[in-house]
């Protein structure tokens, strides 16, 4: 096949957005190398028993032959029977950690003769290229775009990182045990928001990738890689993979009327029930690819002559989050869990015109107690509040 790709490449016109191509594993290596000239290339790799997103320079760092077994409160890597590079779902990291970093200096200040002056922090010097972005994650990025760029005051740091990012998406061939993107209409097929999207085609005699182009930059890059045009059989193979993944979703969440349901259930007894299990550790918000909340810390040096403001991820599960003079607004665990799920699945729709949940399942997998957003939403639905504010008897 390598011979064939080389000859086809020279014979065809430069790839356009409409083009579907097939590239080999070697070409994927070439893709990483080509991106590395202009970008900090980030992709999945195995680290401490989990697949995380880190800087990569070589194909061998990708998690070939690994799959992740996930269930509520459980995550374990296992060997696959094949060498699939993207044969896992999603791990504890999301791309949020690069576009909306966990810790970021917003500005620095310095005392001077006039009092003090403030200068914005120097921007991130490197542009990011993401390899292996899943459909749910593309949706999560689009949601954070609405939060950080779509509001009247844009987050200039986020906007710059986002505009510069190059995205190589991957269609999921394996649904995780806690995935429910099909319910949220955020997957498993990557439909837009990428520069290139790969579908890993694995068979007895083949290990290559169908490539769809999502942008001119993607087309230009593909043009520099050895590739051949995709056949009808390749395109059919992709469709079969997506259909199979869709049929194997680990979980489901009924979204019909979810906004009204949750917004009319602030006094539901289920909040106390879940609070009895919830540790309010905030893991769910840290792993969630859409949660955007932050706090700020003001520091000054020992001389008091320089100061800075640092922004850090925060979670609505902490007591401090809602503190106002005299006490926190959300003292109880039940009010904090209610805030989280009501924000995600309901209030987000009012705020940003989209659900705040993409069905990636991370919050379910990484909850130490295995509390499951789909199960909690279903419990509220099973026993809704009456108009009078009480609950129906029974279910």
């Amino acid at each position: 096949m390598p011979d064939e790709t080389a000859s086809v490449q020279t014979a065809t016109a430069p790839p356009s957005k409409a083009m579907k191509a097939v590239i080999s594993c070697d070409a994927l290596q070439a893709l990483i190398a080509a991106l590395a000239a202009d970008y900090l290339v980030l992709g999945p790799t195995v680290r401490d028993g989990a697949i995380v997103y880190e800087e990569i320079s070589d194909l061998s760092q990708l998690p070939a032959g690994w799959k992740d077994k996930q269930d509520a409160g459980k995550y374990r890597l296992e060997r696959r029977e094949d060498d699939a590079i993207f044969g896992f779902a999603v791990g504890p990291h999301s791309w949020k950690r690069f576009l909306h970093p966990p810790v970021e200096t917003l500005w620095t200040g310095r005392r001077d003769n006039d009092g003090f002056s403030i200068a914005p922090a120097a921007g991130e010097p490197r542009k990011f290229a993401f390899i292996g972005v899943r459909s749910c994650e593309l949706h999560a990025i689009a949601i954070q775009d609405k939060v950080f760029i779509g509001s009247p005051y844009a987050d200039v740091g986020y906007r710059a990182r986002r505009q510069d990012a190059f995205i190589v998406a991957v269609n999921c061939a394996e649904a995780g045990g806690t995935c429910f993107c099909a319910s949220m209409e955020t997957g498993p097929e990557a439909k837009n928001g990428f520069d290139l999207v790969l579908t890993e085609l694995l068979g007895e005699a083949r290990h290559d990738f169908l490539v769809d182009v999502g942008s001119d930059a993607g087309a230009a890059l593909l043009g520099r890689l050895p590739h051949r045009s995709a056949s009808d059989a390749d395109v059919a193979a992709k469709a079969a993979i997506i259909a199979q993944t869709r049929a194997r979703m680990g979980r489901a969440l009924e979204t019909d009327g979810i906004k009204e349901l949750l917004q009319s259930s602030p006094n539901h007894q289920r909040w106390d029930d879940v609070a009895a299990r919830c540790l309010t550790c905030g893991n769910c918000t840290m792993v969630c690819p859409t949660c955007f909340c932050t706090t700020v810390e003001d520091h000054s040096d020992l001389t008091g002559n320089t100061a800075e403001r640092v922004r850090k991820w925060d979670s609505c599960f902490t007591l401090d989050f809602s503190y106002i003079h005299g006490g926190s607004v959300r003292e109880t665990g039940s009010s904090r869990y209610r805030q989280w799920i009501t924000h995600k699945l309901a209030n987000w729709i009012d705020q940003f015109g989209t659900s705040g949940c993409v069905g990636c399942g991370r919050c379910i997998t990484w909850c130490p107690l295995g509390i499951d957003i789909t199960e909690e939403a279903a419990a509220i639905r099973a026993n809704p509040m009456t108009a009078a504010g009480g609950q129906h008897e029974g279910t």
Partner: protein
Amino acid sequence: MFTESAEMARMPPAASGDPFVPRIYCVDRIRRELSDTVTLEITPSQGPRPRYAPGQFNMLYAFGVGEVAISISGDCADDRTFVHTVRDVGAASRAITSLDVGAAIGVRGPFGTAWPVTDAEGSDIVIVAGGLGLAPLRPAIYHVLANRSRYGRIAILFGTRHPQDMLYRDELAAWRRNLDISVEVTVDHADRDWRGNVGVVPALIARASFDPHDTVALVCGPEIMMRFAVNALRDAGVAPDHIHLSMERNMKCAIGLCGHCQFGPQFVCKDGPVMRFDRIASLFAVREI
């Protein structure tokens, strides 16, 4: 890579550059109001002072210590300064109340929604304030007094804990001497010299004279006080969409990005702080929202 959408191109109304970066202002005047409360007049060290509307707030930054949300308490007709009345309750507010004349202070803003003083023209105005809640209402009071003929009856109902911690005492006395408006002050705990009302501020509502069918009520104070004030206004016959409250929530960014100020689907920093009661009535009834 992505293309610039219409949403992205939409720029903030007043701010330019990085909305996280404070501008430097200079403290021009300080007035001690109460043992723990001062009023600062501050002017930009460079360039014009941005315009604001009654009810809006700024984020004030004390160098190296922190940044807090503080309402603008001055007169909008003055285009030179921002006036802020600050109570010392913690690290950042202490640093701000300890500043000297000539000191530098960081400012981001103005932010948030305003009291509907223009929409309220032609109606009776009932202003209900508890304690420091009078500060964000003072620009509205200045406005309605300066444009007195455009409004019907005006009632200012103010509650404070003790006679000795009465904010803006001299000004209240001056407003009270104005026969064209009615000013009622009540204290929770009277001392021997107090000859005025004793009790909570919502109790004054029942006694105030206004046309409930054509009244706009502006309310600011502790949440519990606002709860009772709304009930009293509703009992008096004021419609929920004629009642406006200024809400308070933890704020870190003031620009809709940090998530801290959420009040149900609303962000108090951008959908508030001034909110029309009918739009938040269902949230207002819920504890710990």
